[in-house]
């Protein structure tokens, strides 16, 4: 092939149709919602139970209760010890995966499709008859305390936890580490787990998502067999009032003497999942820091070589989660990198993205949507999101069209509304004696230095 014809970017071929797989929605009489999807290319199935039992409803004094209760589910059931449970699961090639977030607890299993009946039986046993034996709970609490200790010495954990604490007003749950602190986890006992389950794990308000090589017509009777006896319900977890700690600019250095790198977090209170500007927000944030070719990455990495990578993220939850730009940078260029990042953020808010950037971000977000729906686990997670955030069953049918319909004005308006440069707190986890002076010279705002925990 000659050089001249190589110069032309190949044209795209005909677009192949993509529809979000058909979701079969039904419910048991006890209120448990069922969502099933048949995707039969591989003999695999993912089962995901979504419980309205997030960390967001836990009092600060008991922070980590939802997470630790989820961890303790592996401790055994009325029928099996923890070791026997693990053996039963691994005999069918499955692992129990518990994910606890601010808004929900999800318990999921993936296995070969022929083992679905066994897998669902084990899942039901874990949820309906957890035993929380004293020695296992003691062990798992010890593991959690050790993990908390690890996080307190991890550069990423230190910076992220400080950023969350400095973002939210005293007492707002989102300001604390998701898994709690040594103080709040210390008093956890088997009774704490049993009480949390008795008060939050109910069929009403929960959903069971089954995706894979299954006949959706048979799913209800299978779920009925294993979850039919389950009863109860509780008031839905409410929205968190996400008050900010401050509406002023500031820089906080969390001192890590002799650190070779600084972990940087810039942000303030962001948006709830229910924001009406969700799609416009996704578009402008992609331009700012949501893709490799974002303004932040092209500046900090490809132009200046300051960093390995940078992200801007809105962590949307039932309440307003944080908006946060995060990166890590060599100690000696910390202030330069912060300065460039602040300038990119401010420029985005003041001028908005360009038409070309909006088009590129829309194409990217609409295009990657099917790429993120290849696996049974990915599809199940997307459907779980609908249940947690009360979104309609046909939500994903219109998803790509809604991304594609975001206009330049809407994206610019969302950038102005969702980012407030004058309220940003800059957190730098790094060597205070090296970085404080240059950071202060930026004149961004008052600088304070904290010791590491």
């Amino acid at each position, binding site marked *: 092939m000659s050089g001249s014809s190589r110069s032309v970017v190949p044209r795209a071929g005909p677009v*192949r149709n*993509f529809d979000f797989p058909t979701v079969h929605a039904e419910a048991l009489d006890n209120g448990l919602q069922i969502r099933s999807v048949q995707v039969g290319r591989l003999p695999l199935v993912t089962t995901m139970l979504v419980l309205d039992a997030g960390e967001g409803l836990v009092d600060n004094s008991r922070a980590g209760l939802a997470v630790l209760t989820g961890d303790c589910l592996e401790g055994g059931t009325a029928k099996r010890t923890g070791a026997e449970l693990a053996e039963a699961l691994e005999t069918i090639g499955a692992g129990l995966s518990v994910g606890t977030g601010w808004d929900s607890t999800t318990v999921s299993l993936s296995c070969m499709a022929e083992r679905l009946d066994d897998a669902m039986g084990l899942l039901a046993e874990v949820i309906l008859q957890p035993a929380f034996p004293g020695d296992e709970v003691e062990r798992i609490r010890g593991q959690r305390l050790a993990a908390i200790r690890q996080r307190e010495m991890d550069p990423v954990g230190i910076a992220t936890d400080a950023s969350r604490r400095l973002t939210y007003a005293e007492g707002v749950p989102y300001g604390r580490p998701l898994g709690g602190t040594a103080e709040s986890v210390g008093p956890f006992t088997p009774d704490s787990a049993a009480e949390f389950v008795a008060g939050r794990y109910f069929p009403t308000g929960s959903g069971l998502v089954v995706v894979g090589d299954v006949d959706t017509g048979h799913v209800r009777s299978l779920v009925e067999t294993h979850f039919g006896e389950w009863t109860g319900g509780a008031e839905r977890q409410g929205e968190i009032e996400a008050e900010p700690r401050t509406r002023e600019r500031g820089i906080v250095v969390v001192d890590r003497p002799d650190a070779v*790198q600084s972990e940087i977090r810039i942000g303030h209170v962001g948006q709830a999942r229910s924001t009406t500007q969700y799609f416009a927000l996704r578009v402008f944030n992609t331009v700012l820091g949501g893709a*490799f070719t974002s303004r932040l990455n092209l500046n900090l990495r490809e132009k200046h070589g300051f960093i390995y990578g940078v992200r801007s993220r809105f962590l949307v939850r039932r309440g307003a989660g944080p908006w946060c730009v995060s990166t890590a940078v*060599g100690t000696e260029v910390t202030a330069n990198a912060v300065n460039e990042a602040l300038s990119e953020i401010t420029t985005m808010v003041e001028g908005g993205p360009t038409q070309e950037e909006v088009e590129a971000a829309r194409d990217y977000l609409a295009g990657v949507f099917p790429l993120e729906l*290849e*696996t049974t686990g990915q599809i199940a997670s997307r459907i779980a999101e609908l249940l947690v955030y009360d979104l309609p069953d046909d939500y994903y049918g219109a998803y790509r069209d809604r991304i594609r319909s975001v206009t330049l004005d809407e994206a610019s308006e969302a950038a102005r509304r969702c980012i407030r440069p004058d309220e940003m707190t800059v957190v730098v986890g790094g060597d205070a004696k090296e970085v404080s002076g240059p950071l202060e010279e930026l004149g961004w705002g008052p600088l304070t230095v904290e010791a590491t925990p």
Partner: protein
Amino acid sequence: MLSIPIERFTLDNGLRVNLSYDDATPVVAVNLWYGVGSRNEREGKTGFAHLFEHMMFQGSEHVPKNRHFELIERAGGSLNATTWFDRTNYFETVPSHHLELALWLESDRMGWILPAMTQEKLDNQRDVVMNEKRQRYDNQPYGDWDEWVQAMVFPESHPYHHTVIGSMEDIEAATLEDVADFFQTYYIPNNAVLTVCGDFSRDETLDLVERHFGGIAPGAEIPAIPGDPTLEPIIGETVRERVEADVPLPRVLIACRVPPYTDSEFYAADVAGSVLGTGRASRLYRSLVRERRLAKDVTSFVLPLTTGAGMLLVWATGYPDGDPGEIEAGLVEEIEGLTSVVDQEIERAIAVTETALVRQLEQVGQRADLVSMFDQLFDDPERLNSELERLRAVTPADVSSFVDRFLGADNRAVLTYVPMPQDTATPSVQ
């Protein structure tokens, strides 16, 4: 038995091409394995294979800097690359109608990268890579473990003695001439495998591959791996290092040489590694985590390396006041106890591996990567479909014989991390 369809072709210039069709989602993966990794680096050039991988994203004759990322992201695709001991891989997954774009970009940097190389780009990516090293290795608790372990398990003359990320000095010293040499030596069609996997039209794809890659001239046979790639099957002793570092919890790592992936005995090693430490029913979890509470977490895996030996790696992280000596003794007891593995444990290990492999196959990108791997390492992409059978053939006697020969005290590297006392300012090595 898996039945992933794979059709294999070889272009005149030596490029091996695999097509694997799957229409579940209208997306397609393009995956390239180049037969070059950190094992090909010469003295004073450690980390270069990885730095070169970064340079591959800096544009080529017909693709300006950043354009590769812009075009793929604009198409709604994802892309990346990784460097490893024995190979470097490049991959993108794009909506099916953008297949030609991905082929064009990959072919342009296989054939026409040198005219686009500049000192400025090299300086920039050297900085990026040095930041990657700081972020992922130097500024991470236990982040330097592989540097220690590789140096203990493989002698200085062996190509696995140094890490993939390399040393800061060597990265700093890289020149444009190195870039040109490396490219002309290793980035040639006859040292690469291209796999296209997903929803595509077969004949059209073959035409596109020929059109974009067919004109790239083959290179000379690649040079022998530097140093001495032959190895004794075992280390010959227990080697130890104790590192006092800024880590929160004590951690003990044990590494052993095992047969290379290309050896039939590798599968016994793989099964032994799973029985030992994969999942909560594994021996290490049951004993050290659940029952004896010596460890807060345990990990075990076998690295499927091909040059002289692979490596079994096991580690346990202790509690804050844990005694590393006791943790090590606990690990050793379970490792040596593997001579008594029973059928049930092997069945569980294989059931878990089967689910994990099938889950990997759900994504065309990972499926393509596996096809490329089996082609590059075994000259047999179809081997993917029979991989589980080789694991299923492993018997308790095979595991026992493997353990006897490879997991004794004469084949052990033990690396112990202990938290620095709170009042000490600088790390020290004893």
